[in-house]
């Protein structure tokens, strides 16, 4: 038994060398998470702060000038064109040179002082629906305040909503992204790398050699996956540190619990990787299988970037079998909400069940090759 254990030890060292020797992959693995933390921290925002406005004013008068000045003085708006006719709109929108157009009716001031309902038209480039609606809402607010000033609404009733964004008051995307990034990094290293590395040994025939060695199959698998597990955890810690030091991403819960859950989640990923390597015949097929079967769903169907609530029903059903969906609830729960096992036991249980099922499947699919 002692001999076997040292054989396992030697085997693990061999695997470590495989990983360490490939500098290129290692560099990418260490840098990619950091690069993504930086991108999400600095570059990726959903809100557009400046709106390029076209003003169409057929008959300029004191009222239209007053309203135009409000837009010009508002740091959110930049008037990119002023015209008497609406002909400029189409080409400018098509080129993407403007976002919003404010169209005054003829004789705006006259009609306001007459008390006739005076129609203002806002036309927006709504090809991006979210940005389009947000920009229109900014403009509406400016017009509403102008209207209030000239007494157009008198003392209308106002419901004043006070907004609280719980767990992430500034809606900073980096705060939401870092817990998800952990899941992505863990998947990348555990499922993808394991699948490729195992299938490469298979392709080259070195796996057969390993299988006839005195090592137990479970020792081979263990020796294969342990180094990746360590690498994955190390990567998580660097990403967390970067997020914490540079972007002050909050960490409200227990680090131990997060690391333990990461180990659980990594084991799910490793089992998936082993399974994929077992059922595919070439490195390329394993790679494709791992990409399609783990990376894409874990990135897109987990709520990491795109909220699960936005998905149509059939896709929402699919998310239940995506491991990252459950893990992200855990990592966000720990980091942003500071909750513990009392609130997260369900997700932990689901991951454990997944792990059990995948392990059984992986071990089963490996057996025939031993015979």
């Amino acid at each position, binding site marked *: 038994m002692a001999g076997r254990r040292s054989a396992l030890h030697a085997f693990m060292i061999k695997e470590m060398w495989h990983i360490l020797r*490939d500098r290129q*992959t290692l560099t*990418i*693995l260490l*840098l990619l998470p950091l690069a993504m933390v930086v*991108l*999400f921290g600095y*570059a990726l*925002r*959903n809100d557009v702060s400046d709106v390029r406005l076209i003003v169409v004013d057929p008959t300029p008068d004191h009222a239209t000038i007053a309203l135009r000045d409000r837009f010009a003085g508002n740091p959110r708006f930049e008037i990119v064109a002023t015209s008497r006719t609406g002909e400029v709109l189409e080409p400018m*929108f*098509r*080129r993407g040179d403007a976002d919003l157009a404010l169209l005054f009716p003829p004789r705006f001031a006259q009609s*306001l002082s007459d008390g*006739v*309902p005076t*129609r203002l*038209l806002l*036309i*927006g*480039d*709504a090809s*991006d*629906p*979210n940005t389009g*609606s947000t920009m*229109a*809402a900014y403009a509406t607010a400016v*017009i509403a305040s*102008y*209207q209030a000033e*000239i007494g*157009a609404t*008198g*003392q*209308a*009733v106002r*419901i*004043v*909503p*006070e*907004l*609280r964004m*719980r*767990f*992430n008051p500034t*809606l900073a995307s980096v705060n*939401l992204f870092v817990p998800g990034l952990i899941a992505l990094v863990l998947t990348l290293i555990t499922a993808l790398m394991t699948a490729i*590395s195992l299938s*490469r040994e298979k392709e080259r025939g070195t796996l057969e050699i390993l299988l006839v060695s005195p090592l137990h199959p479970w020792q081979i698998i263990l020796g294969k996956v342990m180094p990746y597990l360590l690498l994955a955890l190390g990567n998580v810690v660097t990403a967390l540190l970067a997020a914490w030091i540079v972007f002050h991403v909050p960490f409200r819960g227990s680090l131990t619990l997060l690391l333990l859950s990461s180990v659980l989640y990594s084991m799910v990923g490793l089992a998936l990787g082993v399974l994929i390597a077992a059922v595919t015949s*070439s490195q390329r097929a394993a*790679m494709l299988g791992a990409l399609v079967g783990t990376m894409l769903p874990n990135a*897109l169907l987990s*709520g990491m*970037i*795109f*909220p699960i*609530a*936005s*998905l149509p029903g059939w896709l929402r059903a699919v998310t239940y079998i995506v491991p990252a969906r459950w893990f992200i609830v855990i990592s966000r729960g720990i980091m942003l909400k500071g909750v513990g096992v009392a609130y997260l036991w369900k997700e932990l249980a689901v991951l454990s069940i997944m792990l059990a099922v995948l392990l059984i499947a992986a071990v089963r699919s490996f057996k025939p090759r031993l015979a």
Partner: protein
Amino acid sequence: MKLRALRFLLRKEFLQIVRDRTILGMLLIMPVIQLLVLANAVTFEVKSARMYVVDRDHGDMSRGVVTRLAASGRFVPTESSPSMSEADKEMLDRRVDMILVIPEGFERGIVRDHRAPLQLVFNAEDGAAAGVMQSYANAILTSYAGELGAEVNPMLARSVSGGTDPAPMRGHPVIELRRRGWYNSELDYRQYMVPGILVVLVTMIGTLLTAMNIVREKEAGTLDQLNVTPINRSTFIAAKLIPLWTFAMIDLAIGLVVARFVFHVPMLGSLVLIFFAATIYLVGALGIGLWISTVAETQQQAMFVTFSLLMVYLLMSGLFTPIRGMPAWAQWSTEVNPIAHFVALMRAVLLKGARMRDVASHLVALAVISSVVLSVAVRQYHKRSE
């Protein structure tokens, strides 16, 4: 370049692709599946939020607020109690997305002072969702306030959001604001995303497969065999790139058909322009693949390099988040990002009917980027095989 040699090599490459079921499946079926899944998955559209009601006023108006929110279909009231701590617990447990708190004296406030506060607490764990839900809630509350205004004081029946009641008071200036969204009046997020996703698909095919294809020959040692034949490098590279370029174009065509008939993406502009731009763009995308194949020794490396490059390029392309929301340095970086140009071009042509003139700057940028990338890659390749 020898045309005869090129013809034979091309035949070999096409045969190799068609013979390999994995690759063929990846080329022809995957794009459709990916498009179907991605177009539905990549969305910030929010359908409905579960709402916990903490009503401390128990008046007609507080019930009105709840009914209006519920009637919109955006908010589904799940539970209600006067206790905030109960609500908090539900939110921690992710059973509700939003808590609506109506304080005591809400109705009195409206009747007496024409204004009353209330509180909306969102679970910002899904940042984008919280932001969008908040704007929905605001719009509904504003319009309900207008309605209440009519009840409380029939003379002031109009609110800025565009009431429809006739007969305003004479002599009072009244602005009636109409809003119109061009190019996507139904605010269908998928229509906006699908053209961008098509770009992702052809890029994945072009870049990843080119890199993997060459590296596989390298790994198998057949590349060295090819290098000692009298075939010159440009012939070899052309033979490698032309088949994958062809398949990427076929994929684009398939993708456009799916976009048109499944997602009803309007195709206002010229498809010829789209394919023309794709031709230029793909030269660059394949060039990147070629470059990767010169720096990677194994298929695993090729995949990791491709994956991380594309990831960064995609995130910085304006596909998911608007470019104009980025800081200045990031906005500048999109000028040399081919994905950013092609995404912008696809969206402009398909959704807005942009013509050649309108997107000329993108076309020029793509042409420059593609020729630089390809020549760098070819030079690099040249060096390696010496």
